[in-house]
């Protein structure tokens, strides 16, 4: 833990530009932090040599006055983004030895902006999970501890758990995440950091290992809203290689954070306060509403009537797309292979050995809901309900500018504290899934602590491609909440 690892990206940029610190110094401090915190298991692959090489390049660029937006900033890259020449596993055994011969657009954009890659961060296998416990390389541990029991190991959330843990523990200044049903926002809430899923189409999906293509979206995970704006700036943009990438201009995200939200209407959806919502989360939300009100915004109660059907819809659509996407792992072209006497036997043995339990389960559900005779009853029905969920939001945004909700229904839970019921695990995503289905931008901002001293986040949602309003309100919420808590072992 050094002063350097505690800087925000914005502050580090200023110090690098003034020559007060070098990118190599900054990177070395983070490499030391990464080595010291190996117990968190946040990285699948560390790339310290590559990081130092990029840091030297960043210093040279700074000298020449050619520094990019993120020049010399050490980042973690979720191990779902293909990185040329660096093993990319999706935290799955089936890709244990996969070394991509190409670079994903997101990691290429960050590289072009001068960012330094520290390594590949762990995730739930193929991004399927909310705890990071389904990784084939072991669970990731959160740096946070409960007040009452500092021995219990807590999950960082998922699927971008390695990224969340690394950013929270001051191993990386920021990290990439991907969000399919909450995989950026929920771990950000669990680890007390900012996680921003932009609008579907804002960031290219090219070279990102696919889970559910109509939902997957990359975004930044950072310690401040401003840093999220800076990182998104480097990541976003049209990419002809992704046909769903939006061909629209990328605004100056950081400039949108004016601090002035007077007159904005903030929707408070009544369906997000179910009977079972904990008093702690309810209070956190009420406090957030008061903060925005004090800053001059107007809270407006809204209704999103199809909210309660979002999880069921998601758990048809996402597995359906996953079963199609994961058909490519066949033991022939890349990845693991288990020999068989026939081609079918080779496929079946390879896939049974290479995929973990949660992935196998989702492939089977997807196969079922897409199979002849059930397609209309399940998949088409779910896509219709999905249209209604999106319509709920569209109507709400006729009257409000942003929507405020809790990010997750609880603080982080402990490893092994959950039962085996997959449906119970899915409830973690109850507040994040609806916006995913509608493709909307959503950010989680840490605003408070649980009675056990664990971070809790609030979520802000916005209109499609209106990341600017989301960031503007998030910046105000962040200032008002003044979240300063740090995890164990981190002092500021």
């Amino acid at each position, binding site marked *: 833990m050094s002063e350097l690892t505690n800087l925000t990206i914005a502050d580090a940029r200023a110090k690098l530009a003034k020559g007060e610190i070098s990118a190599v110094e900054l990177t070395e401090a983070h490499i030391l932090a990464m080595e010291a915190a190996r117990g968190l298991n946040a990285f699948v692959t560390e790339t310290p040599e590559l990081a130092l090489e990029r840091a030297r390049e960043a210093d040279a660029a700074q000298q020449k006055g050619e520094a990019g937006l993120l020049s010399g900033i050490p980042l973690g890259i979720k191990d779902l983004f293909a990185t040329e020449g660096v093993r990319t596993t999706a935290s799955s055994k089936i890709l244990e030895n996969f070394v991509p011969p190409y670079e994903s657009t997101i990691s290429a954009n960050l590289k072009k902006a001068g960012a330094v890659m520290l390594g590949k961060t762990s995730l739930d296998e193929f991004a399927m999970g909310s705890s990071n416990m389904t990784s084939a390389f072991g669970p990731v541990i959160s740096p946070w501890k409960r007040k009452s029991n500092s021995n219990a190991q807590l999950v960082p959330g998922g699927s971008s758990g390695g990224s969340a843990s690394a950013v929270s523990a001051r191993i990386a200044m920021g990290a990439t995440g991907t969000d399919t049903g909450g995989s950026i926002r929920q771990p950000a809430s669990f680890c007390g950091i900012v996680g921003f899923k932009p609008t579907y189409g804002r960031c290219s999906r090219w070279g990102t290992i696919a889970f559910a293509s109509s939902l997957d979206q990359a975004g930044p995970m950072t310690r401040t809203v401003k840093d999220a704006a800076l990182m998104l700036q480097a990541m976003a943009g049209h990419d002809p290689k992704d046909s769903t990438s939006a061909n629209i201009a990328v605004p100056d995200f950081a400039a949108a954070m004016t601090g002035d939200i007077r007159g904005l209407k903030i929707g408070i959806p009544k369906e997000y306060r179910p009977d079972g919502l904990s008093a702690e989360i309810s209070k956190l939300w009420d406090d957030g509403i008061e903060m925005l009100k004090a800053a001059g915004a107007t809270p407006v109660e809204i209704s999103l009537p199809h909210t309660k059907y979002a999880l069921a819809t998601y758990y048809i659509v996402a597995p359906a797309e996953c079963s199609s996407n994961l058909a490519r792992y066949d033991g022939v072209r890349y990845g693991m292979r288990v020999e068989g006497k026939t081609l079918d036997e080779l496929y079946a043995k390879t896939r049974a050995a290479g995929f973990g339990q949660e992935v196998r389960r989702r492939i089977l559900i997807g196969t079922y809901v897409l199979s002849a005779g059930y397609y209309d009853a399940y998949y088409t029905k779910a896509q219709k309900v999905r249209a209604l969920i999106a319509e709920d939001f569209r109507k709400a945004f006729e009257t409000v500018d942003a929507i405020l909700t809790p990010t997750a229904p609880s603080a982080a839970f402990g490893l092994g504290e959950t039962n085996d019921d997959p*449906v119970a695990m899915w409830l973690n995503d109850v507040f994040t899934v609806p916006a995913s289905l509608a493709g909307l931008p959503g950010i989680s901002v840490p605003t408070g602590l649980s009675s056990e001293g664990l971070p809790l986040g609030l979520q802000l949602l916005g209109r499609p491609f209106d990341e600017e309003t989301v960031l503007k309100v998030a910046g105000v919420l962040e200032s008002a909440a003044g979240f300063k808590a740090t995890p164990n072992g981190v002092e500021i």
Partner: protein
Amino acid sequence: MSLDKDTVKKLATLARLDLPEAELTHLAGELSNIMQFVEQLGEVNTDGVAPMTSVAHMTLPRRKDEVTDGGYPERVLANAPDAMDGFYTVPKVVE
């Protein structure tokens, strides 16, 4: 909707997953629970609702039908578990 072991076995065959008998029984219970959970969508009136097909409401872009990439078979085959003479290999499929 309850799924029995035989149905799960059929799904596993369709999905090319060679699963042991014991796991099939376990999965039948789990998948049944999941399908019961999603049954609630039946309550929603979706008459006249068009299924969502595009999240971002945009027309898919078109480009000229021409080769834009390629010419490096060795890179394409670099991750193949068993490549030979510039080809992928599989068990014999033609008798």
